[in-house]
């Protein structure tokens, strides 16, 4: 087990015209369970392939602890990887499939048997060990592929590339908790690629959000939800995603269409420059009612979606649509004027999609002053 350190690692498939993965410096810490979350085509598979050595990066260097492995081929890196779709040795039995990585590495026979049986038991493959792997249904085939990734003991990391895409949803939950269990037992570094936020948030110690080839934020699931560092994280995590409203900073005050919303607070030491900015606030932290509280702004209700457990109230603020998540028993009639109040410290300011500050109550309102 080792920390996996990427130093300025980037990859381009077209000779440098576009980056599939922008040069990044990043460390995957030993024994942690990571979820790598991002939309289709953002470079998740590329990143995994670089770590496992299936792809050599266009630029940058890779270290396992202090050993540089940039030029080391896959076989020398000792990484397990499971692919998006089942990859099997089709004419072999399930047992032989699971034993294959161990036999290639000359494990003693008894140990092979013991490991194969343990993994097959964990993944519920016991009844299928003798069957030819290609006779299994795709979901089971993928579980066999997963098993091949988990059967080895001395791996630097286990990379899982959307391993449960083809698996039956009911089985997904079971398998995911099995994976967590295995992770706890073995202490492998685990990188789990997904574009499903629930999967990422429930699984990982740390979620790494990748967008357009760059890591936009990494943190614990709650952190990503409560405090998005990038507009993309706000959109991608949470359902529905974060509201984004264009605004303006003038004299330290955030304004939307001539209305003062709140005080602009910079994330850094220095003051925020006056000029255009975007407000981001999650529907969960946008509260209707509470006339005149700060920060907040007047809105017009345009419609309500009843979701059962909660309601989604659609409003317009100065011509921009927003959504507020309210209790199921609240009633808001369309075409009425309401006041949308932002929960304290949960409304943020973004410039060029990157967070630069937050909004606090206006002076003299809500009893709380802002600098």
């Amino acid at each position, binding site marked *: 087990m080792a920390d996996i350190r990427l130093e300025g690692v980037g990859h381009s498939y077209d000779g440098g015209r576009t980056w599939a993965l922008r040069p990044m410096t990043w460390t995957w810490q030993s024994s942690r369970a990571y979820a790598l979350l991002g939309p289709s085509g953002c470079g998740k598979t590329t990143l995994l392939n670089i770590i496992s*050595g299936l792809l050599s990066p266009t630029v940058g260097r890779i270290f396992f602890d202090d050993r540089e492995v940039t030029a080391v081929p*896959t076989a020398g890196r000792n990484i397990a*990887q499971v692919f*998006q779709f089942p*990859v099997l040795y089709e004419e072999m039995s399930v047992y032989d499939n699971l034993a*294959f*990585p161990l036999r290639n590495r000359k494990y003693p026979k008894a140990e092979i048997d013991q490991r194969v049986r343990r993994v097959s038991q964990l993944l519920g493959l016991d009844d299928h060990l003798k069957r030819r792997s290609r006779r299994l249904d795709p979901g089971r085939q993928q579980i066999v592929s997963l098993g091949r990734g988990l059967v080895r003991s001395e791996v630097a990391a286990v990379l899982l590339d959307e391993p449960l895409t083809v698996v039956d949803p009911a089985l997904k939950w079971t398998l995911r908790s099995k994976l967590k269990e295995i992770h706890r037992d073995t202490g492998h570094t685990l990188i789990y690629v997904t574009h499903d936020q629930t999967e990422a948030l429930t699984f990982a110690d740390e979620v790494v959000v990748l967008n357009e080839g760059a890591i936009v934020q990494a943190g614990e699931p709650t952190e990503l939800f409560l405090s998005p560092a990038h507009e993309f994280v706000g959109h991608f995590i949470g359902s529905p995603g974060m509201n984004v409203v264009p605004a303006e900073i003038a004299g330290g005050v955030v304004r939307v269409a001539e209305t003062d919303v709140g005080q602009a607070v910079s994330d850094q030491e220095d003051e925020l420059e006056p000029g255009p900015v975007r407000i981001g606030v999650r529907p969960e932290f946008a509260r209707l009612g509470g006339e005149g509280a700060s920060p907040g702004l007047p809105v017009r209700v345009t419609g309500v979606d009843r979701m059962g457990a909660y309601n989604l109230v659609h409003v317009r603020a100065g011509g921009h649509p927003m959504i507020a998540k309210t209790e199921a028993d609240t009633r808001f009639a369309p075409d009425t004027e309401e006041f949308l109040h932002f929960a304290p410290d949960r409304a943020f300011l973004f410039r060029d999609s990157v967070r630069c500050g937050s909004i606090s109550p206006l002076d003299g309102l809500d009893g709380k002053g802002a600098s």
Partner: protein
Amino acid sequence: MTEQSVTVAGSPVGGEIVTGAAPQDGTPDSRVSVKPKNNRAWLLVLPVVVSVAFTAVIPLMTVVNFSVQDIFSPDDRIFVGLEWFRSVARDPEIRAAFVRTLLFSAQVLLLEIPLGVALAVAMPRRGVWVSVALVIVALPLLIPWNVVGTIWQIFARADIGLGGWTINNVLGIDFNYTLDSTDAWITVLIMDIWHWTPLVALLAYAGLRSIPDPYFQAAQIDGASAWSTFRHIQLPRLRGVLTIAILLRFMDSFMIYTEPFVVTGGGPGNATSFLSILLSKVAVGQFDLGPAGAFSLLYFLVVQIVSYVFFTVLTRSGR
């Protein structure tokens, strides 16, 4: 309306029109079945039936016709039953040629299939060299059979052929395919390998290209050796194309005619007299249509049976 329906009812297309028309005018028609039945399918099968009749059945029937008669002249012929078949099957010369041809086909398959697969594995998977490799490999396939024969006839000659001369004078091995049976056999075999291994290679290459990248990546992750990757990923996925390659190469080599005819003319002695060469001698040279017909049918039968066996064994083993 009814009249029209009745007139077309007999034709395959008419079936549908009748069922459609009957309820409209209300006249019960005994030929109209309750269940709508569409006979149009027969019409679609017809072109195949006609073309198969002309390409295979009718020519074959004329051969069958010859094979059961003794023909002295167009007006003077007698029915002899299976007599010709018996004599052909007992003929020692034909039997020897049969064994010889079978041996030749076996050698062709044993050499060309592994060589072709090896060539395909060695060919680049992507990049600019793919097309270069394809053209070079495909080149022998574009040469007409008799030209191939002529090329090798000259190339292997001990006196003026580059290959034959080199073997004799540089390697110091006594080689003369016009005098020595083994040399003649080897020449014909190598010629066939040169000519047809590319076909196996191209088929295998197409099969290999259809294997998705993740399979090779998984093999790398699992620490598989190159041989192991071939054995467990590439070979299983070549089963389909190799079945085709084996069938094609068997049928073709078992019926080989032009090239040995041009190079050795079946000699020296009978060393390279394959079944087809013997057959043409009987049919065209001696104009014995009866024995030639029986010979052809038996020949045809053997090719069918062996091909069927190959096909069944290869597809069964894949399940």
